């Protein structure tokens, strides 16, 4: 029986991802840990959120008594109206994505491969799947960051040599941030750059399905 070691909470994963967002950039956040990223934008930095629901410059969620059915984000949550917002149709929303106008997208994943293949839309044992707009984000955003748990519910690796689930995009992921590590897919293989406090490189490798190349300047998870 392996001793249960503490992993980083979702909020810390989100905080680490927030450091990667360019000041003044256009960012699309997926559902799950990615949504939390907006809570941790560093002071003095500004990020403009793009939503497939047809809203640019999404602000905070609306209070319960101020909900407007004509003002939602991609997850169907109600938004506050903020100055500088813009509305657009789905055609324009996906032109922004596919046309390379969105700087960064942060997505969850079922699996990511060492070369940056992303699988996040279908678990074959569970119905037809929901592709949504993930495939367009993977193909079109300038940078794709994955934020997820390092392993699945049965502690199997989600970071793998080759995705076994149907992929969303090939070689599209530029950075993987998990509750154990920060990794970068490269043509040479998967580079381990940061490790969660209290964890060793060997322990992280033991829970990773792809061979890790240890970065020469590897460090502790940096917030």
């Amino acid at each position, binding site marked *: 029986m392996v001793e249960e070691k503490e992993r980083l909470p979702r909020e810390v994963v989100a905080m680490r991802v927030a450091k990667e967002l360019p000041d003044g950039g256009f960012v699309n956040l997926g559902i799950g840990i990615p949504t939390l990223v907006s809570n941790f934008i560093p002071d003095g930095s500004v990020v403009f959120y793009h939503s497939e629901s047809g809203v640019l410059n999404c602000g905070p969620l609306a209070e319960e008594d101020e909900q407007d059915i004509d003002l939602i984000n991609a997850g169907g949550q109600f938004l506050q109206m903020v100055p500088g917002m813009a509305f657009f149709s789905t055609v324009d929303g996906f032109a922004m994505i*596919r046309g390379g106008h969105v700087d960064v997208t942060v997505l969850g994943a079922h699996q990511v491969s060492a070369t940056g293949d992303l699988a996040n839309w279908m678990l074959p044992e569970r119905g037809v799947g929901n592709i949504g707009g993930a495939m367009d984000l993977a193909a079109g955003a300038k940078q794709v960051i994955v934020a997820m748990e390092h392993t699945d519910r049965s502690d199997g690796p989600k970071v793998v040599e080759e995705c076994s689930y149907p992929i969303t995009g090939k070689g599209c992921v530029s950075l993987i941030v998990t509750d154990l590590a920060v990794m970068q897919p490269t043509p040479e293989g998967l580079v381990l750059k940061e490790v969660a406090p209290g964890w060793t490189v060997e322990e992280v490798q033991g829970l990773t399905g792809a061979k890790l190349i240890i970065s020469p300047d590897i460090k502790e998870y940096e917030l």
Partner: protein
Amino acid sequence: MLQGKLYGSPQAAVADIQDGSTILVAGFAGYGVAERLLSALLEVGSKDLTLIYRDGPYSEIGSGPLPSIENLVSNGQVSKLISPIPYSPGGGGTIEECWQAGQLEIEIVPQGILVERLRAGGAGIGGVFLPTAVGTRFESGRERRTFPQGEAVLELPLKADYALIKVAVADTLGNSIYDGSSRNWAPVMAMAARITVAEAERIVEPGELDPEAIISPGIFVNRIVAAA
């Protein structure tokens, strides 16, 4: 004599939808949906329908207004669904059950591909090369070509018999504007259908809307019904 676009009831506006029709249903996460037109379609009872839409009701969030795609499926009116998110991610309900029982065909199309196929259909474009499906199962059977900016896959245009859309304000010529995020799929669906039916929160006389502000020009809107 100008054929008026105003219809007295949602039922009248969808009464001629034949069995076997393909229908575009605008909406996003259950908002911006022409609920009264969908409700009328349940009453009219047209069968063997193909429905093209963004997503099923989001029962998890509890916000999806009824009636919905799911009601039409339950009512035995639907033979095929084309959608990037055919049913609620939290669990499929009737739609999933009918699909598993083989009573319903479901075609998953990535969202940005679906929207461009409709745009191509509406704009008279023979096909579009998109990078979206490259290297995925959605590429299967399609032509791939290499362009200076990278690889792309041929996607064919999609058109429909009807579009059911929700608009904030329409004038009696069909010129329409939307409210916030409820615009979503309506403009492109209005272009891609032979007959577009708009459920309007408000109907005004020509001249009351600023021509600069029109999102869907009346040429794309054939029928108008008051939402209230």
